[in-house]
C-alpha cells in the first residue's frame, strides 16, 4: 500500500483535512464570538466574577485551540508525501522542558485564579441577617420553606410526610415552631438582600440549578447544604433539577421570583395570613 504511487494522491486528503479543520476552527470561533447560544446574564455579584473567569478561560483555551488545530492542519498539508525524505528527529529535550513548564504554570495559575470565585461562594457563610430559605427536593418537585414570623424552622418528622394532606415536608405538628412555617412550590426572594438557601432532599439526589444565579448544588438526602448569594435584578427565573433523580427528572421544575423589597414583604404577609387561616 505504501508504494511510490501513493504520493501522487496524497494531496487530496491533506487539503481536505486542512479545510475541515479550518471550518471547525472558524465555526467554533464564530459561535463563541457571536454568542448564538450563550449564558443568560448573571444576576449576582459572584455570578459576575464567575463570568470573568469564564472569559479568561475562553481567551486562553481559545488561543491554544486555534493554534493547535491550525498547526495540525498546516503540518498535515506541509508534510504530505510528495516524495521528500522524512527528517530523522528523535525529539528535543529543551522544547519538551519549556513546553511542560509553560503549560504547568498556565494551568496552575488558572486554577488559582478560579479559586477566588469558588471561595467567594463556598468558604465562609453569609452575613448575619441573611434571609434563610430551606429548599427540599422530592421526586419530582421542589419545595421551599420559609421560617415564618417566629424566624425559626420547625422540626421535621419523616413519618408525617403526606403530600395529599398538604404536608409534603413532614412538618411535625407537635413543634410550635413549625406551625407558622410557609411552604411553597415556587421560590420568592427579595432583591438586594443576602439569601442563604439550605438545600436538602427527601428521597434521592437532586440538583438545584438557576442559570442566572450561577448556582448549582446537589441536594443530598441526609445532608443540609448551605448556599448563599445576593440577587441584584428583579425578574422571574427558571429552577431546574440537574442530577438524574428518576423518570420525572426532566419536569422537576419551579420558578424563582425575585421581588422588590416591598413586593416581597407583601407576599410574605399574604402567605402568613393564609397560614394562620389554615391553622385554625
Amino acid at each position, binding site marked *: 500500500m*505504501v508504494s511510490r504511487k501513493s504520493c501522487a494522491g496524497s494531496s487530496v486528503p491533506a487539503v481536505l483535512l486542512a479545510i475541515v479543520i479550518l471550518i471547525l476552527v472558524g465555526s467554533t470561533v464564530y459561535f463563541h464570538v457571536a454568542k448564538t447560544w450563550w449564558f443568560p446574564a448573571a444576576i449576582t455579584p459572584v455570578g459576575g466574577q464567575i463570568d470573568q473567569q469564564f472569559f479568561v478561560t475562553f481567551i486562553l483555551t481559545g488561543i491554544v485551540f486555534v493554534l493547535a488545530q491550525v498547526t495540525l492542519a498546516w503540518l498535515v498539508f506541509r508534510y504530505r508525501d510528495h516524495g521528500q*525524505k522524512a527528517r530523522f*528527529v528523535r525529539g528535543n529535550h529543551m522544547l519538551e522542558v519549556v513546553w511542560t513548564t509553560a503549560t504547568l504554570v498556565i494551568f496552575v495559575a488558572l*486554577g488559582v485564579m478560579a479559586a477566588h470565585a469558588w471561595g467567594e461562594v463556598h468558604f465562609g457563610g453569609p452575613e448575619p441577617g441573611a434571609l434563610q430559605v430551606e429548599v427540599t427536593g422530592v421526586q419530582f418537585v421542589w419545595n421551599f420553606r420559609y421560617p415564618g414570623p417566629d424566624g425559626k424552622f420547625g422540626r421535621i418528622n419523616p413519618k408525617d410526610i403526606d403530600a395529599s394532606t398538604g404536608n409534603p415536608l413532614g412538618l411535625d405538628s407537635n413543634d410550635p415552631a413549625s406551625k407558622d412555617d410557609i411552604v411553597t412550590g415556587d421560590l420568592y426572594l427579595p432583591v438586594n438582600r443576602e439569601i442563604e438557601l439550605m438545600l436538602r432532599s427527601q428521597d434521592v439526589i437532586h*440538583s438545584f440549578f438557576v442559570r442566572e444565579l450561577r448556582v448549582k448544588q446537589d441536594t443530598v438526602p*441526609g445532608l443540609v447544604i448551605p448556599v448563599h448569594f445576593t440577587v441584584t435584578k428583579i425578574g422571574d427565573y427558571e429552577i431546574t433539577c440537574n442530577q438524574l433523580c428518576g423518570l420525572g427528572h426532566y419536569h422537576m421544575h419551579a420558578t424563582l421570583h425575585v421581588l422588590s423589597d416591598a413586593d416581597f414583604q407583601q407576599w410574605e404577609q399574604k402567605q402568613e395570613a393564609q397560614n394562620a387561616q389554615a391553622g385554625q
Partner: protein
Amino acid sequence: MSSHASPVHHSEAPKGWLRHYIFSLDHKIIGTQYILLGLSAVTIGVILSVIMRIHLAWPNAHIWGFANGVVSPEDYLRVITMHGTLMVFFVLTTVPQSGFGNYFLPIQIGAPDMAFPTLNMLSFWLTFVSMLVLLSSAFVPGGSPISGWTAYAPLSAVGVVAGPGQGLGQTLWAVSIALFCGASLMSAINFLGTTIDLRAKGLSLMRMPLTVWGWFITASLALLAFGVLLAACILLLLDRLAMTSFFIPGGEMVSGVLLKHAGGSPLLWQHLFWFFGHPEVYIAILPAMGIISHVLSTFSRKPVFGYKAMVYSLSAIGFLSFMVWGHHMFISGMNPYSALTFSILTLVIGVPSAIKTFNWLGTLWGARIHFTASMLFAIGFVSLFVTGGLSGIFLAQPALDLYLHDTYYVIGHFHLIMGVAAIFAMFAATYYWFPKMFGHMMNETLGKIHFWMTFVGVYCIFMPMHYLGYAGDPRRYASTDAVHYLARLQPVYVFISIAAFVTATAQLFFYFNFFWSIKHGKKAERNPWRATTLEWQVSTPVPHDNFGGHYPTVYRGPYEYSVPGAAEDFIPQDVAPEQVAKA
C-alpha cells in the same frame, strides 16, 4: 524474519473447533473474541443513541420496540443507562485493552502467549457472561435501570420504589458490573505479568513500543481501580438486597414509602465510584494514546517525537489519575477546600496530556505522511483530543464547573475526549492491524469514506452540545417540555440528530469493509506498512505460538524510521546492527 534465539520446541494449536475458536487459550483468538464482543456492544450502543436522537429531535416519532411506539421518560432513561454502561465498560474498556492488547502485546514483546492463558480465557468468558447479565435486564419486569451508568445512590440503592427498572433491572446491572470487575482484574494480572516477565531478549523497558507502554500502564490502573468498584458494587447489592445502610441515609421517604434504613452516606458511593471512575477514563484512553503514537510514527516515516517524554507522561497520567476523582463531585456537597485541591491536581494532569499532544504534532513535523485510513483516524484523534482536552480545562475549575456540571457541555466534553477519541484509536488500530490479523487488506477507499463521514459527523454531533451547555441545558432530560428556556434549542437538537444519523450510517461502510475484507480483501504481505515492530516481522497468519519456536532478539528502539545511512526507511527491531543494509 531474522531470528537469533535458540529454538524452543513450539506448541501446536489445539485440534477441535470448540477448543480452537470458542474456549481457546490462544491470546490471538481471545483478543479477536474481545473485539467481536466489543463490536456487538458498540452496535447496540449506537442503536440506542440513534433512538435517543430520534426521540429528542422528534419527541412524537414512533419507534419500533417501545410500547405504543412511544419512548416514555423511563424508556429514555433506560436507553441512556444501557448506552453508557455498554459503551464505557464493554467497548471503551474492552476493545483497546483486552481486544487489541491481547492480540498484539505478546507479539510485540516477543512472547509465545500471555503469561496465564487459562486466566485469559476465563476473563473473556466472564466478560461475556457479564454482558449477558447486563442485557438481560431489558427483559425483566421493570426493564433496565434508569439511574444512568454512574448509578448514584440512593436512586440505585433503594429499590423499585425509586422508579421502574430500579428493581431487578438495577440488581442485574450491579451483578453485571461486579462480574466485569472480576474479569478486568484477571485480565490486568495477565497483562502486567506478561509485560514484566515475558519480554524478548534485548527488549528493555525503553525499547517497548508505546502501545505496550499504554497497555502496561492501563493494566496497572485497572488492577488498582476495579477492586474498588467491585467493593462498591458488593455494598450496593447488600443495600438493595439485605437491608443494610451503607449508602442510604435515615428518614428516606420515597414514593410515599418510609424506608427503614438509617445513617448511610450517598456520597460514599460517589467517592468509591469515582475513585474507580476517573482512572477508568484513562483506562479507556491510555491504550488509545499508545496506538495513536504507534500509527502516527509508522505513517509519518519518523521516530516518535520525544519517546521518553511519551513514556513519562503516560506514567504521570496513570499516577495522577488516582488523585483527581473529586472533580466529578464539585457540586455534590463535598468539602469546598478539598474541591480546590482536586481542581489544581486536575489541571496538573492536563500537563502530561499537553506533552503528548505536543509530541504528536512534533512527530508530524518534518514527516513524510502517508494518508492511509489508519493514519487519517490517528490525525483525527489528535484533533479530537485537543478539542476535548481544552473543554476539560473549564470543567476542572469548580467555579466554572458549577455552571456546566451535568449539562450537555459535559456530554460534549467526555464524548470527544474519551468516547470518540478512543473509538478513533480503535478504528486506526483496526485499519492498521487488520492485515496481520486476517491476512487481507481492508479496502482503503471505503476506509477513507468512513473516516470523512465520521470525522465531520462527530464534530457536528458533539461541538453543538457544548453550546447547549452554555445555554444551561441539563443532561438526561427525556423531554424539554417543562423548561421554557430549552424550547429555542430545539433546532440544535435536530441538527445534532441529523449529524448522528449520518455518522451512524458511515459505520455501515466500516462493517461492510471489515466483514467483506476478512475473506475478499487484497492478500496482505507480511509487512504491508513497512513497520518496525515485532508483530510485522512474523509471518501472516501469525503462527500458533507467534514465532514458530524461533524467538526474536531485540536490538533497537521501536520506531527506527528514516534512519540516515540505511537503505530502507525503516529498520525492524530484531535486525542486528551488522545486518542493517547500508544506503
